């Protein structure tokens, strides 16, 4: 079982370039998330999705777009990369929670994608 897989694992971009990070999960989870991790800042939620075809903004959505065309995939796009987007990006997924509690909060993470924008 692969769990959550992110590609690419490393990427270097120049300012203004675009790119897409792909997240794939094989656990049939409904919910998927994109976080960024920066030193001293912990993890901050960029966007999330509660089901195929739906997306929503998290804490730091500016400069990013996402799509969830298939249940197992969640794409994170940078249309015009900026040095401030240099970070490690983590995708995660989770299953629906108990009755009345939409999110159990137990996330399964990918191994991260390290992005450097010059």
């Amino acid at each position, binding site marked *: 079982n692969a769990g959550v897989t992110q590609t690419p694992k490393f990427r270097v971009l120049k300012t203004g370039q675009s790119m897409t990070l792909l997240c794939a999960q094989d656990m049939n989870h409904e919910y998927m998330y994109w976080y960024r991790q920066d030193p001293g800042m*912990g*993890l901050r939620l960029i966007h*999330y999705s509660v089901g195929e075809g739906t997306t929503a903004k*998290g804490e730091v959505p500016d400069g990013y777009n996402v799509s969830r065309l298939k249940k197992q995939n969640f794409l994170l796009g940078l249309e015009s990369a900026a040095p401030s987007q240099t970070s490690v990006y983590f995708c995660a997924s989770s299953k629906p929670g108990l009755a009345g509690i*939409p*999110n*159990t909060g*137990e996330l399964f993470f990918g191994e*991260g994608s390290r992005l450097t924008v010059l």
Partner: protein
Amino acid sequence: AQSVSQHNHHVILSEAASLELGCNYSYGGTVNLFWYVQYPGQHLQLLLKYFSGDPLVKGIKGFEAEFIKSKFSFNLRKPSVQWSDTAEYFCAVTTGAGSYQLTFGKGTKLSVIP
């Protein structure tokens, strides 16, 4: 919106020392609380979680955490740390029904010296 505070940025301990990492959250309603661990070069994984019931929860690898509602705290403890516990530890919270967002603290880096 809820927030999570972790008091220590970096903790350095010798093997066999006891560990307590502080975590406080700000939210007045029902919360679900978590500790995640990130070993060097690896992804985050769940250490333990609290939803309801016994406020003392036990997780993997000998870790435990105590939920004290009156103090809005969920501190992580381990009686005797090992070198292999060297990692970064994140406290996280999600509120009750209706929230899809897991809010993380900024993390505490633990270094265990052999």
